[in-house]
């Protein structure tokens, strides 16, 4: 097996519980991630599934260090990034990128598509930014004419492609995709997933794909982590999870999926 790109050991993360914050004083902390240990091998496509509140998005945000864990460690390509300062992280950020769930709120409505994709390229000091923007657009199957458009002029599927273009323009080694198809119609969803499959192949990406939808995960991912209440309840090859799920929660998730088939028993 190839060297792991990510090595996560005993990861714990808590966040302030704002619903219980007193008027004066600090909010009590609530434990979101409770002692997670796993690896992501280079070139792997990892699926992270779980219900709402299971901590899957928090885990994703910790991986790309938008959140700082309380304890444990995250190693990226051998380097400990658990507590790196923002200054230390900035040059590394090019290497791990994120695609967000809702492209309408993660693309600046006042900037053109070219401006949105060029933003991180300029920040990271890339040369020939214009050409890189064109290449990124081409990679995600959008016409170069879209450079001068604004996000509101695009369809949901096209906007999500812009989010993907912005991430891959930096030539990252790792991409975190957090529920990126859950707001799309099935046809757009299928297109975006096919694109992602193709990019993983062509660019040799390592991908973590967060989703609540096991059907989508099955198509895309080689490996699955199932989360419940901030813990990993199952961590196995995709085939194994579907053929012989071990955790009760995984079985429950599988049996709750309504297949488009009136003969599937479902009660």
């Amino acid at each position: 097996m190839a060297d792991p790109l990510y090595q996560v050991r005993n990861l714990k993360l808590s966040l302030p519980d704002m619903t219980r914050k007193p008027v004066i004083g600090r909010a009590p902390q609530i434990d979101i991630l409770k002692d997670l240990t796993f690896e992501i091998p280079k070139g792997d496509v990892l699926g992270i599934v779980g219900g709402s509140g299971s901590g899957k998005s928090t885990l994703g945000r910790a991986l790309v260090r938008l959140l700082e864990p309380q304890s444990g460690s995250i190693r990226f390509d051998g380097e400990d990034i658990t507590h790196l300062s923002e200054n230390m992280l900035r040059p590394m950020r090019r290497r791990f990128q994120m695609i967000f769930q809702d492209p309408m709120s993660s693309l600046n409505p006042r900037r053109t598509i070219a401006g949105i994709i060029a933003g991180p390229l300029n920040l990271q000091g890339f040369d020939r930014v214009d050409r890189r923007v064109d290449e990124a657009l081409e990679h995600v199957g959008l016409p170069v004419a879209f450079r001068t458009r604004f996000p509101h002029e695009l369809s949901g599927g096209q906007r999500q492609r812009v989010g993907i273009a912005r991430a891959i323009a930096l030539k990252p080694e790792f991409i975190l995709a957090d529920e990126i198809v859950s707001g799309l119609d099935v046809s757009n969803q299928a297109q975006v997933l096919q694109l992602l499959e193709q990019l993983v192949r062509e660019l040799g990406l390592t991908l973590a794909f967060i989703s609540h939808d096991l059907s989508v995960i099955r198509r895309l991912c080689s490996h699955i982590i199932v989360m419940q209440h901030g813990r990993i309840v199952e961590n196995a090859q995709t085939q194994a999870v579907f053929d012989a799920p071990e955790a009760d929660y995984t079985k429950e998730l599988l049996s709750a999926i309504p297949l488009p088939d009136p003969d599937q028993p479902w009660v």
Partner: protein
Amino acid sequence: MSAYLSVRNLSVVLRGGPRLLRSVSLDVAVGEVHGLVGESGAGKSMIGKAILGILPRAVEIAEGEIMLDGTDLLRLPTGERRRQIGASAALIPQDPMTALNPSHRIGGQITDRLVDILKWSRADARARALELLSEVHIPDPERVMASYPHELSGGMRQRVLIASAFAAEPRLIIADEPTTALDVTVQKQILRLIGEMQARHNTALLFVTHDLGVVSKVCQSLSVLYAGMIVEDTDVRSFFTGPAHAYSAALLAATPKYTDPQASLTPVPADVIEAVTAEVEAFEARWRRG
């Protein structure tokens, strides 16, 4: 089986603009669950809103009939129409957070409708609300009545809205993507609950959704909508064994199935979109001439 809800040639237009619903016809009988599927923007929710008389101001009904138990709602004077709809139809909305007023307790939000519109006494309405909350399997109805929406989970809030929809014993329920915001495990519970309530109260149910998996579990028949036009109207079994329209077939192929990862997730092919768009245009041209 005669239809309780019968929509005939319903056209809705943007005021001074194009048609949004194109001569839509569909029937839902008492005791039947009819699915309404299509991609976003196809006009699924618009049909529900037209039936309930809650269309946005910018659009209007150009022609057609909405028959509820044999009466054409569109021929009634406004006040009478609203009373009729209020007494015989109800909505289960998509988002349980925005459908409940965050600054009012749950109890009042269920009873106000019974008291204000149906002129029940407060005591009767309260007793009815408690009974409904236990009917939707809420463990501690008294406590939930006194709670605010933010104190309940998403699944609980959706249960409250289901209880509320059935409060006045409507004969028609329109459920507009009622489980889209929920986890699969909670979705399953809520779908079973909706089915159970629908069967017990013997209502006609129009179920708006984009999820064909859900349709196959809760509906007996369905209509497939594309660009405001119904391209297929059939029973669930024939639909899932062999959809008649190429667009329906493509939509089914695009639906992910974890049992068959390779065959699923094919985008709707461009030639299918072209063909169905041409069909819509031809339909539109005939309507303009006629």
